[in-house]
C-alpha cells in the first residue's frame, strides 16, 4: 500500500517538475485576446510586434522586429494572430505595440463606406478613421492589395485588359478566400461597379492552382504574390477603383509611435513593390524562413 502511495507521490512530483520546466522553456504565449490581461502601458524598452496569419505579413513584421532590435530595443514577437477584430483592441490597450498593416484594407475595416481609392487619399482617410490610441507611421511604397487576375491565355482569348471587359464574358467563376464573397470588392462590387456577374467558389490557398487548371476563370490574388509572375497571370486594370490602394503601413500604439518612428520609417521607405514580391519569392520558392529573409534584406539595404 505504501509503495503505491509513494510511487503516486513520486509521479505527481515528477509531473509537476516537468510541467514547470516546460512552462519555463516555452516561447511566448500567442495573444490571448483577454482585455483583462496585459492592459495599460508597456515598458518603453520592450516592443511587442504582431503579425497576421499571412506569411508575407510575417516577413515584414520580422523585418521591423530585427530593425528595432538592431536599434537597441527589446522585441517580443506575437505572430500569426488572425484577424483584425482580435488584435485591434490589443493594440489599443498596449498589449501589442506595432503591427504591419495595409492601408486600404485597414481603412475599409474602420470605414466601410469610404470613397478614397488613390494611395495618398487612402492614407489620409486612414489617419482620420483610426480611433484614439492608434496611429500609423509613414506608409511604404510597397503594396499588397487584392487584385483580379486571369491567365494570359484567357486574357488573350477574350481581349481582356480591365475588369470592365469581363462584362462581355459569360460563365465566369471567381475564386478567392471564403470571405471574398462578402467583401465590398467581391461579387457584389463587381456587379455594382462594373456590371460583371460572376459566381463564386471559395478556393482559399489553392486559388492560383485552380485558375491555372481552368476550374475558375477569375482569381483574387494579392498583388505581391510571386505566382502572378511565375504563372504568367494578367492583372486586370481597375479604372473605377473597386480596390482601394493598399500600401504597407505600420500600425502602432499612439504612445510609443514617436519612440520607434525613427527606426521604422526608413525601413518602410526602403520597401518597394518589387522588393516585397522578391521577399515573398524567397519565402515560397526558396522556402527560406522569415528570420533569414529579414536578416538578409536589412543587411542588403544597410539598415541593420
Amino acid at each position, binding site marked *: 500500500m505504501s509503495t503505491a502511495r509513494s510511487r503516486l507521490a513520486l509521479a505527481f512530483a515528477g509531473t509537476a517538475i516537468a*510541467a514547470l520546466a516546460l512552462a519555463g522553456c516555452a*516561447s511566448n504565449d500567442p495573444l*490571448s485576446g483577454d482585455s483583462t490581461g496585459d492592459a495599460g502601458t508597456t515598458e518603453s524598452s520592450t516592443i511587442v510586434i504582431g503579425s497576421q496569419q499571412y506569411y508575407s505579413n510575417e516577413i515584414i513584421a520580422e523585418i521591423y522586429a530585427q530593425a528595432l532590435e538592431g536599434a537597441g530595443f527589446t522585441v517580443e514577437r506575437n505572430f500569426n494572430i488572425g484577424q483584425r477584430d482580435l488584435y485591434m483592441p490589443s493594440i489599443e490597450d498596449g498589449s501589442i505595440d506595432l503591427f504591419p498593416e495595409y492601408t486600404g484594407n485597414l481603412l475599409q475595416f474602420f470605414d466601410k463606406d469610404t470613397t478614397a481609392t488613390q494611395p495618398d487619399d487612402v492614407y489620409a482617410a486612414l489617419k482620420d478613421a483610426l480611433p484614439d490610441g492608434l496611429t500609423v507611421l509613414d506608409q511604404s511604397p510597397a503594396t499588397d492589395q487584392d487584385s483580379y487576375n486571369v491567365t494570359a491565355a484567357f486574357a488573350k482569348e477574350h481581349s481582356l485588359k480591365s475588369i470592365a471587359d469581363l462584362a462581355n464574358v459569360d460563365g465566369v467563376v471567381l475564386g478567392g478566400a471564403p470571405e471574398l464573397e462578402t467583401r465590398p470588392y467581391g461579387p457584389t462590387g463587381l456587379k455594382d461597379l462594373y456590371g460583371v456577374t460572376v459566381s463564386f467558389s471559395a478556393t482559399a490557398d489553392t486559388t492560383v492552382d485552380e485558375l491555372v487548371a481552368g476550374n475558375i476563370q477569375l482569381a483574387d490574388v494579392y498583388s505581391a504574390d510571386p505566382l502572378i509572375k511565375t504563372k504568367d497571370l494578367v492583372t486586370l486594370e481597375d479604372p473605377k477603383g473597386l480596390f482601394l490602394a493598399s500600401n504597407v503601413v505600420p500600425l502602432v500604439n499612439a504612445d510609443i509611435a514617436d519612440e520607434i518612428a525613427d527606426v521604422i520609417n526608413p525601413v518602410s521607405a526602403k520597401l518597394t513593390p518589387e522588393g516585397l514580391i522578391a521577399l515573398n519569392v524567397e519565402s515560397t520558392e526558396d522556402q527560406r524562413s522569415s528570420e533569414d529573409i529579414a536578416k538578409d534584406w536589412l543587411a542588403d539595404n544597410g539598415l541593420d
Partner: protein
Amino acid sequence: MSWVLDNLDLIWSLAVDHLRQSAIAVVAGFVIAVPIGWLAFRYTTLRGTVLTIVGLLYTIPSFAMFFLLTAVFGIPALSETNLIVALAVYAVAIMTRSVADGLTSVDEVTRSAAVAVGFGAWRRFWTVDFPLAGPVILAGLRVTAMSTISLATVGALIGVQNLGYLFTNGSQRRIVAEVFAGVVAVVVIAVLIDFALVLLGRVLMPWSRRTVTPRMNRMQAAHA
C-alpha cells in the same frame, strides 16, 4: 528535407508550445474526470446521466466547440485559453468513462477485504480502488493524450501557435515539406508520450504486468 533541417528551431519551439498546451489540457481533464468518474461509479443512478453527458460532449466537433465555448463562457474565440479549455473538455469526456470503468473493474472481493481490514472510504479510494483501477485509467489516459496532441493542431484555424501552424503556413506557401514535417512531428510526439505513459504505468503499477493477457482471458472464460 532541406526545409526541415533549415527550420528545426521553428519546429522545436512550436513543438514545445504544442506539448505545453496538450499537457495542461490532459492534466486538467484528468483532474476533473477523476471525481466525476468516481461519482458515476459510486452512485449508480448517476452513472447513466453522467456518461451520457460526457458522451455528448465528445460528439461535438472540435472546430465548432471553440465557438460554443465562446458563446457560453465568454472565452475569447481566438485565444490559446479557448483551445486548452476545448481540449480539456474532450479529455474529461474520454477520461470520465475510463475512470468509471476502471473503478468498476476492481474486484469486489478486494474492496470488501479493504473494508473488513478497516480502511476508511478516503484511504480505501486512494490506496485500493484507484491504484487497482490504474491499468484501465492509464489506458484511457493514453488514448486521451494521443487524441489531445493530434486535436491541438486544429488550433491553427483559430490562430493559436502550435504545430498546426506548419499546416496553415505550409498551405499558404505551398511547401509540402513543411506540412509533412508537421504531420510527422505530431505523430512522433504523440507516440513518444504514449511510450512515456506506458513506462510511467510500469513504474507506478508494477503489479499490473501480471494482469491477464487476452489469450489467458479466453481460457479463463472457457473455464468460467
